């Protein structure tokens, strides 16, 4: 059954809270493997849905699910090694929450009922808060508090948005079950005023979780303070889940004939996020914060792409996939650097290429990828979005888009080259372990692989997804 995909990790996660750390590590890995297997089965339609009122296997949901599952497998490999070296105080909580996190994120990707979607997204906040707090420093405390308060409030607004959408059914006096699938069918009859109000709140609410500016303030703190495997998961998987919420609401709006309204909102949020992230990235003293701002920028790109429509939607979906792979790889590399140098500040790190050569290759390759250079996929996706922007008649937005990209690349390049080649006085305190170095490579190679050869299954799924909101790849 389809529900097993999230029930399995949740149950294992709850169990992992109470078992010794060694056993917990094993459970983490085994659950990740099983999860990937179940996900692949779901892709081939092998898993029937039991509670179709709440859950369904939508193409875009499956895409996010597959991505989450794959990234989680890589991260769990890494985490096993990472936690052993950092001597985490409360390891069972870490394992348990990682698994619960996986479970709730899978629930997000499968949810079809708006309020179930909301419950799942709020649950991701709650189970990931202990992950950020795991190091128990003052900064971690502050980051956790900001994360949980800002996200809870933001997501509460999304609940208001969900209720407004419910109200729009009531006022139109249509009798349909409250699921995205059935709402999409009757979208044109829904009350437009409440639908618009609902979308605004959903965009703000889930946008908070997705890290869109100006609601992004929690994101740099949380991502920089969480242990690296958790940061990778937050950035690579959680942000996509929040995006999924907005995407589904946008689909509904598009079908209700209000596509222009929601598109403009998304374009506005997208460009603001890119600009804000670009400004804060220049001269950023903390490399994990730099990566966090880069996530904000990329989420902005995705929102921008989806808002534009046409070819850009295809670009946005591709961007989501590649950003997840590359960014989680980068956070894992950053974790390796942190273990090697024991500092998050760029100025105390130098000569990465000499001290940690393997990490250097993955980190630098990740930087190349995130900057949108070939051979990585972000090059293609950004190109698609740019073409889309010009085709749909947004030349100013396109110009701003390019400007922000340049700003971000400039900011990141300075930091990365500084870390890699400068002669800063730095001491190396850790060694590279195979288990920690391998996962970032695996993620990056996957991204390259998907760039040169996109499997037909994934390709058609993306096309099916974007077809609904008018996305094509033939301009």
């Amino acid at each position: 059954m389809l529900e097993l995909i999230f029930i399995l990790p949740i149950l294992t996660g709850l169990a992992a809270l109470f078992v010794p750390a060694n056993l917990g590590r094993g459970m983490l890995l085994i659950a990740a493997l099983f999860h990937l297997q179940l996900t692949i089965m779901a892709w081939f339609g092998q898993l029937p849905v039991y509670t179709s009122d709440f859950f369904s296997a939508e193409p875009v949901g499956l895409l996010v699910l597959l991505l989450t599952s794959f990234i989680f497998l890589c991260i769990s490999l890494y985490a096993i090694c990472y936690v052993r070296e950092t001597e985490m105080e409360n390891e069972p909580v870490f394992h348990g929450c990682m698994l619960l996190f996986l479970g709730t994120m899978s629930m997000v990707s499968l949810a079809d009922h708006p309020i179930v979607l909301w419950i799942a997204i709020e649950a991701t906040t709650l189970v990931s808060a202990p992950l950020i707090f795991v190091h128990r420093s003052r900064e971690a405390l502050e980051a956790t508090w900001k994360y949980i308060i800002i996200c809870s409030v933001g997501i509460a607004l999304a609940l208001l948005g969900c209720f407004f959408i419910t109200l729009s059914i009531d006022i139109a006096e249509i009798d349909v079950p409250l699921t995205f699938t059935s709402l999409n069918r009757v979208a044109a009859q829904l009350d437009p005023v409440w639908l618009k109000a609902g979308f605004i709140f959903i965009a703000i609410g889930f946008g908070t979780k997705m890290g869109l500016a100006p609601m992004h303030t929690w994101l740099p703190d949380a991502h920089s303070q969480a242990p690296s495997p958790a940061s990778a998961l937050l950035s690579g998987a959680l942000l996509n889940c929040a995006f999924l919420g907005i995407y589904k609401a946008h689909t509904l709006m598009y079908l209700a004939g209000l596509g222009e309204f929601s598109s403009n909102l998304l374009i506005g949020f997208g460009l603001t996020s890119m600009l804000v992230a670009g400004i804060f990235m220049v001269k950023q003293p903390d490399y994990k914060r730099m990566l966090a701002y880069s996530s904000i920028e990329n989420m902005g790109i995705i929102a921008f792409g989806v808002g534009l429509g046409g070819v850009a939607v295809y670009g946005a979906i591709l961007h989501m996939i590649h950003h997840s792979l590359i960014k989680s790889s980068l956070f894992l590399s950053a974790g390796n650097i942190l273990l090697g140098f024991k500092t998050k500040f760029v100025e105390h790190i130098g000569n990465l290429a000499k001290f940690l050569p393997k990490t250097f290759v993955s980190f630098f390759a990740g930087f190349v990828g995130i900057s949108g250079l070939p051979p990585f996929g972000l090059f293609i996706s950004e190109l698609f979005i740019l073409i889309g922007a010009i085709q749909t008649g947004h030349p100013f937005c396109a110009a701003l888009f390019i400007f922000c990209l340049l700003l971000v690349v400039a900011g990141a390049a300075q930091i990365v080259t500084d870390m890699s080649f400068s002669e800063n006085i730095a001491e190396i305190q850790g060694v590279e372990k195979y288990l920690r170095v391998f996962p970032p490579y695996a993620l990056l190679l996957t991204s390259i692989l998907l760039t040169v050869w996109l499997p037909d299954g994934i390709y058609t799924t993306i096309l099916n997804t974007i077809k609904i909101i008018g996305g094509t790849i033939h301009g």
Partner: protein
Amino acid sequence: MSNIVNITMVIILLSVLLSLASNRLIALVKIMALQGIMVSLLPLLLEHHSRMGSGGLIFFQVMILIKGALIPGLLYVALKRVVTKREIEPIIGYHASLFAGLIIILLSIFITERLHLSLPKGHDLLLTTAITTISAGFFLMMSRKKAITQVIGYLMLENGIYLVGTALTKHAHTLYVVEFGVLLDVLVGVMIMGIILHNINHTFDDIDTDHLNLLKD
């Protein structure tokens, strides 16, 4: 019947206003308990919910228990353990807060008037109450120093949203399982916030949000 509904709503408004004026944390927690109970009772009193099965009744009992007893209880425990100084310490003073409350309700009425074209009949005050509760929750979060008042503000926000949800929309498509999920999320959220509060107190010897300013750009 409609008068009882109105009275319940006025009590909710009263609790909102008193929470803005209250200067003791314990009093604030008690007010939240009252508000929680009233918010959970309201859907029961509304006419279009009168035909509900036993499942609904059990759900609302659980809800009163959680909103009226469990969550305030958690807050109370957190308060007893954490806070040494029981004063609220506002950033915006009480007098200004009270008048902010007045402005909030004026705005809520204005918004309701603007929107009431497409509202179900007789629900004007309900929407006003909900909007007031939501905005006052926001106000409370922003205008008080103690971290625990932010939790309380969040709860008030949540109560307001719940008013929109359960009371305004018809019951045909709200499934109790789903609502219970929402409730559970809120409960767990408050629990986790409580744990973090405890840690904040442990680390800084206070729960003043002024201490939380290490991370910035």
